[in-house]
């Protein structure tokens, strides 16, 4: 969704007429209420947050702007493990989403035939059930002594993952693996839908042409299908990585105190500790890091026209 909607092929440029003065104002009247809403409740809050992050004081005595930039440095040195963990978990989940989501998107676009609509419904429908309820269901699935843990234990997979530090002594719940599993699950639809839209736009005759030129299916995929699906890959990874990096629901419900992500820290500083300057600084650092990662990524993948 969102970034995927590159203009469709059959775009017809609206006619440009010489408008009268009254008509020239029409677009501004159409924009006014919505843009005002975004300015007041999206842009202005950012300004307030910026000012909060350089304040000092306490809840009892009140906060004052003192241009105390030290807060940023303190926040970074105190919470850098949570920052690194957030980026690591979100990055791993995004990669897993791509690996898991690509075959399914490919299946819907090229192989599903008359089952296509049903599979699409099955991809979207879980999205309408409360995601908190579904995340809690993972507690049951990954429970100690449950079927999943038993199978992984018998296959000695848990030995390997424990050695890698992803799980701990024969349990999956309350480990990094559970958190990444939850993140991957929750953001999969955001990967599959853009991938599907861009795969669906590929002309099937290109595959035939590749086959006529003696390309094996693997070569066709590597040189034709995958490059043409790049817009979907880029918007899918962004739609997965950005929300995953700020998420704290999966880390809180499926993880332990050792798997806390930066979202949890911001939430508890704001709502429990009530240390507003630190919380605001943390939130700004997160925003800056995400914007930086996204900008570099978009530059590297050469699809700047998407944004």
């Amino acid at each position, binding site marked *: 969704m969102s970034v995927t909607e590159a203009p469709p092929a059959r775009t017809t440029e609206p006619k440009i007429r010489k408008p009268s003065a009254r008509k020239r104002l029409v677009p501004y009247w159409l924009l006014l209420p919505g843009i005002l809403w975004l300015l007041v409740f999206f842009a202005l809050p950012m300004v307030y947050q910026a000012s909060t992050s350089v304040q000092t004081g306490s809840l009892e005595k009140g906060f004052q702007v003192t241009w105390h930039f030290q807060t940023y440095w303190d926040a970074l040195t105190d919470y850098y493990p949570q920052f690194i963990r957030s980026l690591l978990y979100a990055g791993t989940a995004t990669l897993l989403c791509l690996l898991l989501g690509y075959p399914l998107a490919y299946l819907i676009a090229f192989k599903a035939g008359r089952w296509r609509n049903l599979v699409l419904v099955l991809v979207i429908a879980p999205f309408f059930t409360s995601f908190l309820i579904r995340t809690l269901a993972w507690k049951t699935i990954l429970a100690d002594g449950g079927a999943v843990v038993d199978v992984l234990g018998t296959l000695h997979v848990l030995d390997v993952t424990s050695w890698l530090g992803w799980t701990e002594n024969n349990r999956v719940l309350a480990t990094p693996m559970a958190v990444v599993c939850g993140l991957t699950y929750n953001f999969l639809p955001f990967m599959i839908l853009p991938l599907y839209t861009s795969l669906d736009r590929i002309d099937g005759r290109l595959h035939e042409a590749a086959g006529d030129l003696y390309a094996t299916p693997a070569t066709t995929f590597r040189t034709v299908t995958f490059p043409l699906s790049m817009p979907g890959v880029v918007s899918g990874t962004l739609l997965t990585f950005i*929300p995953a990096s700020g998420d704290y629901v999966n880390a809180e419900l499926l993880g332990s105190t050792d798997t806390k992500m930066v979202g949890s820290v911001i939430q508890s500083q704001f709502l429990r500790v009530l240390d507003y300057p630190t919380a605001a600084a943390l939130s700004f650092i997160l925003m800056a890091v995400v914007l930086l990662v996204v900008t570099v990524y978009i530059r590297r993948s050469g699809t700047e026209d998407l944004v």
Partner: protein
Amino acid sequence: MPVLRWIRRNLVVLAGLLTLTYMILPNAVVMVFSFNKPNGRFNYAWQRFSLDAWKDPCGVADLCGSLSLSLRIAVWATAGATVLGTMIAFALVRYRFRARGAINSLIFLPMAMPEVVMAASLLTLFLNMGARLGFWTVLIAHIMFCLSFVVTAVKARVMSMDPRLEEAARDLYAGPVQTFVRVTLPIAAPGIAAGALLAFALSFDDFIITNFNAGSTVTFPMFVWGSAQRGTPVQINVIGTAMFVIAVAVVLAGQLIANRRKSNAGKQ
């Protein structure tokens, strides 16, 4: 080995179906455990079959109250975001004017921002204004973050519309209002409906932004969050299952109607 060859040939289909299973699995678990009768407070291990929770879905204090609150917020947020978002989408596609680039970025940014950042900054605004957190602050926040999604959905549809249809209407002496209501709106309707559906789902399901800006007001996702610590009642599984079934039914019905329209149009 014919079996291995068959697996190799159908590798994509098998991998895709595996992913689909991964996606449906939690829904299946929620459904199965809605028929459970747990021993303690936590509904995590299967005990025995029971229909108790289905007979009495509102049997837990505050559960249905939070559900109706979430529904009310979602309806108003959908209405607000759809009207404002559709207006913006039309302005962006149909008119050329200055500041289009800036406005496009302002629409894009809320979608490119981790939710927790928006949630925290909105809270600083409300704290500074001395606003009382509750229904209204949640509604304001929901309209804000749904707006961008509605704009993108409607924009995609309006972009692919043929402006000659509206010119034809004008040539046939339709006034501007008549043209809009009888021609423009019906053609844009699927995009507007998609945007509205998305807004409804996003608002109904939102936890992070609501968690920051709701004060002591409890929406359904917040109720579920709280219950994760205290012990989840089976009724939550019942409501989760019902939501899943209703969503599948609504989407399938919509597709059936669309298919029938298509085949009717083919006959004429």
